């Protein structure tokens, strides 16, 4: 069964007398364990699509099943509960809480899931370890490098064992080497069975995904599968930095 299935999904925005069709009739199915890159120029509708996939917004038309649940017509608070249980977000700007330790940042989604503090701590630590930052749990975001901050954000996205990870330009604020390192991490998680949808406008980044969805003018133009590049291999060809990000 598909993790994500949309049927004629559409989104209109009303700007005064004009109606903007940001998204028109998108029907897509994403299976468990896929690594999908969503591409397209700005204004193509890829951001709108991601907002709908992320249950941050409701579609104007069509249907959307997330992990078998019809979520197209849920209320604001119901969507919040679905986001909490089913989706892990990774943002371009990391969006970590300032002056808050890495561990507490990772625990944040569990706070809204009503998990006991002991279990929060335990799961938070496990996820930080999974992204290789076990020794940084008490560091604040300002004490971490960009790559480390994005790893904390990925740990946060993983902490609720979501059905899918939605990454919105996760490497947009990182240098090339760190970007590939983050992609290596995502590929590793993907091989462990995690479904990942990644938004990017850089074809280089999209090459690490196994499937590409290209949007243009609110429609899905291309949907093709390709053999992905291996980020670990790619790292070997990149010049070593002075200090490798752990």
């Amino acid at each position, binding site marked *: 069964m598909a993790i994500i299935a949309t049927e004629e999904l559409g989104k209109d925005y009303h700007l005064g007398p004009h109606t903007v069709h940001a998204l028109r009739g998108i029907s897509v199915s994403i299976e468990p364990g896929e690594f999908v890159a969503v591409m397209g120029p700005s204004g193509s509708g890829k951001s709108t699509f991601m907002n709908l996939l992320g249950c941050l917004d409701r579609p104007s038309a069509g249907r959307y099943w997330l992990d078998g649940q019809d979520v197209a017509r849920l209320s604001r608070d119901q969507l919040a509960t679905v986001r909490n249980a089913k989706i892990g977000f990774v943002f371009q700007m990391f969006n970590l809480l300032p002056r808050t330790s890495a561990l507490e940042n990772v625990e944040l989604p569990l706070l809204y899931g*009503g998990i006991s503090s002991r279990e929060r701590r335990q799961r938070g630590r496990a996820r930080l370890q999974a992204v290789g930052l076990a020794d940084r749990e008490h560091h604040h975001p300002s004490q971490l490098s960009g790559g480390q901050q994005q790893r904390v954000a990925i740990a946060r996205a993983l902490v609720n064992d979501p059905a899918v990870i939605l990454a919105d330009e996760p490497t947009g604020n990182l240098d090339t080497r760190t970007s590939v390192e983050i992609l290596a991490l995502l590929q590793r998680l993907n091989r462990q069975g995690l479904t990942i949808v990644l938004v990017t406008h850089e074809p280089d980044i999209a090459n690490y995904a196994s499937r590409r969805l290209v949007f243009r003018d609110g429609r899905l133009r291309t949907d093709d599968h390709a053999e992905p590049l291996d980020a670990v291999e790619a790292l070997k060809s990149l010049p070593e930095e002075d200090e490798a990000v752990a």
Partner: protein
Amino acid sequence: MLLQALRIALRSLKVNKLRTALTMLGIMIGVAAVIAMVSVGAGAQARVAEQIQSLGSNLIIVLSGSSNAAGVRLGQGSQTTITEDDASAIAREVPLVQVAAPSSRGNAQVVYGNLNWSTGIQGVTADYFEARDWPVEVGRPVLQEDVDGATKVALLGQTTALNLFGDADPIGQIIRIKKVPFTVVGLLSRKGQSSWGQDQDDVILIPLSTAKKKVLGVSQANARSVGSISIKIRPDEDMAEAETQIRALLRQRHRLQPYQDDDFWLRNLSEVLQTQEESSKVMTYLLAAIASVSLLVGGIGIMNIMLVSVTERTREIGLRMAVGARSRDILTQFLVEAVTLSLIGGVIGIALGIGGSNAISALAEWRTVLAPSAIVLAFGFAAAIGIFFGFYPARKASRLDPIEALRYE
């Protein structure tokens, strides 16, 4: 969840220490002002209440009525219509009455050595001291034996003693009232001014019988007549009811027909002071109201800062929503922050208010009374202001669109 919200609130308040302190200052000043002002007002009230106590708060005085001789009406007390027997009848037959003491008053020149002084001479019985709540400071009061035997003993008020004896001890000395020698057996405690400014300590008390025989003279019409009766009503009894019963008894004893006016006057002295007490109460409310305005301004300060905080933390709100915070969670978080702000300010304000109240009483020598109810009220008011002024910013935060909030720069 609430505990969690409290932790988040404390952390975000710690981040901007100066801003937090300044915002709290508004609430602190407001709460402190309410407490200090109410304590000043309560102090004034307590002073009035004490005056009532010193007068005898449950005192009714019966005075002789006016006479009407061939259509010419003379003033109050011009006719001696009430008697010692009225006094004992009141004490005996009205159960609300604790004690009823007859007395007669006149003025006389008093001589001690080469000093002399004109003062009020009050002929009293042993009950007078209880009726007037007027203890003897040194020596002894007038006793029943003094009244029975018409002994020539006198008690001096503080003012009289000062004018005749200065600092010397008057006890055992002989003074002359209308050339009659009296032995001073006691000095009365200080009573102070009456509510209409009369010096109550400018007086000499002597036995009623002696007063009639030797000093004030006996009324031609009735040898038993007296000028007034001081009646003390039992504690916590209804003064108005007691007055009604006393009036009925006296009318009956004086054989007055329903169409006739009273031939006596009933005075309830506490009425005057109760009016004063009312006005000082109004003053307390007024002071509290003025102080509350500053509390209100403090609340607006909280709202202002919370609105700034919501704007500043838009991305944080967006993130919390993205990872699963419901509107209610965000609302709680910001509401708890506002209430925490106002409650911490409130606690400090209470401390400041108590300190301020003590400072006022110490520096201005102005009596203040710290009412626990005022403290509880001010604290509750601070919490209510936190909720009231925190609600709008918190609701604004909880209604943000997560997509917009996440993108906010």
